[in-house]
């Protein structure tokens, strides 16, 4: 697959001089485009940056190549503070972001940083959360599971790939709230480092249920080891039409782990416009859409004002639940 992209890339690059003026006639072009990944090479944010760099180059939206820079620390906090306070260059940089970014902002885990410190650019996709149990579990539906939790919140342990307070933790809590669990703080969540370990814990019967992103567990779903009780998407997913959503089972919970970007606050208006148009063009690209589908990422697009609203509600939701479970005092 990548070889094909490379071929496309070669064609695109060789045709670059011809297509630049034709495809996107604009006044602004970043002089040295850069995507900042707040994680180490190989992490989720790094993937966003490398994919974006690849498509923007191949589609001829930027001149030359886009540099991917990694800046680790504080779960993205170091990069966030850097962009908020030190980046004043003229619209060259975009920064990869996801639910992890807004979760930490909502919980005040980025010291001296607020969501208003940067300009939220866009989202292009999301992985939806899923709640799974072992194939031989006594729980057949989400209702079975949530009833057990309601009766005795300590009887069901959820494993997940994020730290306490992270999104894998918040998803079952949102479900617990929707199910009317009196004190969601009683619910048991065991943090593992990554979805793979969380699934292993489920399969070794260490825990009773699993909260994760569908892409992390689909290998085990296809092999029949893990049964998904609900996917936290607005509608059933194309790839898994048999798995019901939480909403249709009566729990009004949606859990998109979105992927997107932010840019520095003081970036010029035309730079913002350029990046927005470029990302939009990328999401409309057929090859890009196919790649997303293969990676288990659903289209999830927010731009402009819509993006600002989405981020505000995303942060408000996480803040509320974090306050309830005592992560924020």
């Amino acid at each position: 697959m990548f070889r094909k992209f490379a071929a496309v890339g070669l064609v695109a690059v060789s045709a670059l001089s011809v297509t630049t003026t034709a495809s996107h006639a604009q006044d602004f072009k970043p002089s040295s485009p850069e995507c900042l990944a707040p994680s180490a090479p190989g992490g989720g944010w790094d993937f966003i940056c490398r994919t974006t760099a690849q498509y923007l180059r191949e589609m001829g939206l930027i001149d030359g190549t886009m540099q991917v820079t990694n800046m680790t620390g504080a779960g993205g906090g170091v990069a966030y503070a850097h962009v908020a306070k030190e980046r004043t260059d003229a619209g060259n940089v975009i920064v990869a972001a996801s639910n992890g970014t807004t979760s930490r902002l909502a919980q005040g885990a980025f010291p001296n940083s607020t969501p208003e410190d940067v300009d939220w650019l866009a989202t292009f996709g999301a992985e939806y959360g899923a709640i799974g149990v072992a194939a031989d579990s006594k729980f057949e539906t989400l209702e079975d599971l949530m009833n057990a939790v309601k009766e005795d919140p300590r009887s069901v342990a959820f494993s997940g790939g994020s730290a306490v307070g992270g999104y894998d933790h918040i998803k079952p809590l949102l479900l617990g709230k929707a199910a009317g669990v009196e004190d969601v703080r009683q619910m048991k969540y065991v943090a593992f480092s990554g979805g793979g370990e969380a699934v292993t814990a489920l399969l070794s019967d260490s825990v009773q249920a699993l909260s994760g992103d569908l892409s992390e567990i689909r290998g085990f779903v296809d092999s029949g080891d893990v049964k998904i009780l609900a996917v936290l998407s607005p509608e059933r997913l194309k790839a898994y039409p048999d798995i019901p959503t939480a909403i249709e089972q009566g729990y009004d919970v949606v859990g998109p782990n979105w992927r997107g970007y932010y840019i520095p606050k003081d970036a010029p208006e035309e730079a913002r416009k350029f990046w927005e148009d470029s990302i939009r063009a990328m999401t409309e690209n057929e090859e890009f859409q196919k790649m997303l589908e293969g990676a288990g990422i659903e289209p999830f697009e927010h731009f402009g004002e819509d993006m600002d609203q989405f981020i505000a509600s995303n942060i408000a939701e996480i803040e509320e639940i974090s306050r309830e479970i005592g992560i924020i005092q």
Partner: protein
Amino acid sequence: MEILSSLGDGFAVALTFQNLLLALVGAFLGTLMGALPGLGPANGVAILIPIAFSLGLGPTSSLILLTAVYYGCMYGGRISSILLNIPGDEPAMMTCLDGYPMALQGKAGQALTLSGIASFVGSFFATWGLVLLAPQLVKIALLFGPAEYFVLFTVAFATLGGVSSTNQAKSAFAAMLGLGIAMIGVDTQTGVQRFTFDEPHLFDGIDFLIAIVGLFALSEVLVFLEHHKGGAAAKSGRDVAVGKLMPDWPTLVSTRWTMVRATVIGFIAGVLPGAGASLGSFLSYSVEKQVVDPHSKTFGKGDPRGVVAPEVGNNAAAGGALVPMLSLGVPGSGTTAVLLAVLLSLNITPGPLLFANNPDVVWGLIAALFIANIMLLLLNIPMVSLFVRVLMVPTRILMPVVAMISFVGIYSITGSTFDMMLMVGFGVVGWVLRKLDVPLVPVILGILLGNQMEVNLRRAMTISDGDWTVLVGSPLAIALWAIAIIGFTLPIIMGRRLKSKIEASRPSEEIAAGD
């Protein structure tokens, strides 16, 4: 039979010109990175990821390149361990213990050849283990719950005292220091910050790569500077002669059981998620020492078996670590965690179905490992002098290069100047610890395993609602406790009874100082 035909298909994938070339390039770069102190498998692979992606290589080809680097590092690490007494990468630290004394005795060439053969044996059988075991692994890994993992790490620390130091107390102090450093950062089980002093750079904890590079590579530079200033430059000139390459036949034969034991131990250590090659080489060495030389008569003074055991162990662990990574999506070591990320970004989901869904990727990769392993043997024995020459560069040139690579390597991964300062700090700490004759290996083990150990204990407690009996709740856990207790008490009991003998056979100052 089915496995053999799958493997045949795999060779068809691997034996293309491009893939062979990639395996060769990977093996060469891997050996070089492994040999150069500061660059290890995890950062070696990490550095090459962008290259693999920007070359537009397919999933199989990318994996072949990166795993060849991984295997190569396991080979290369021994070269600087033996010649310079600096582990080229973290799993090679145990090789220093007997490799460097052998080099001091003028048997560097033999040590290199022996360890090269050992590396080959370890990798070769571990790759077979991967072939046979990976499809079945799901069940074995599932025996280990959080409680069992905790006990497993306890075993590692309980057996620590017998290794790497003549002074148990100093060894324990070093392990505590490592465990303390592992505490730094956000606690994943509660989200509370520990020892971060509101410094955002510390929120994620201290990357063990930074600690390793600082403690081993930079402290080496400081030691060199110190001696140079003190007019002892001749002593720090480490241009050890390689000597003859081929070991005597009897020496080689005498290590055959060592190879068998170390392969098994290393492979199992690799298969267990979170343990990795360092634990493999460490356990292989300590078990070997317990078995053949419980009274420290020859180990630590250039015993060939002390060179063979850790090298077999870390290479077998490298192969073993691929098993859970491919079949469960759980990385067995730091480097396989990086490889896992590569797989995911190449749109391949590791898991029980990987072997069914992407047989070309899996079997192509396994075949490539066999090929890379043979290439590595050829690169590492007849051509070992090529790599040695890199290390034979006079110290006054090599040390600045070591410092430079340390800084560039760390910066390329973290992109943070803070981490470089931290690394310098670790360099100074490492230098002080060396002065005090405190071994560095337990510090690293503490940093490496401390988090996993604590986190698994806390997971077990959460799941059991605070019931401590869960720690002895399964036959596997009880068996592991027994091993831990025996491993801890045996050296003490034996030590008391044979105190005078041990005193007599204590390694000379020069050797002890180098951990």
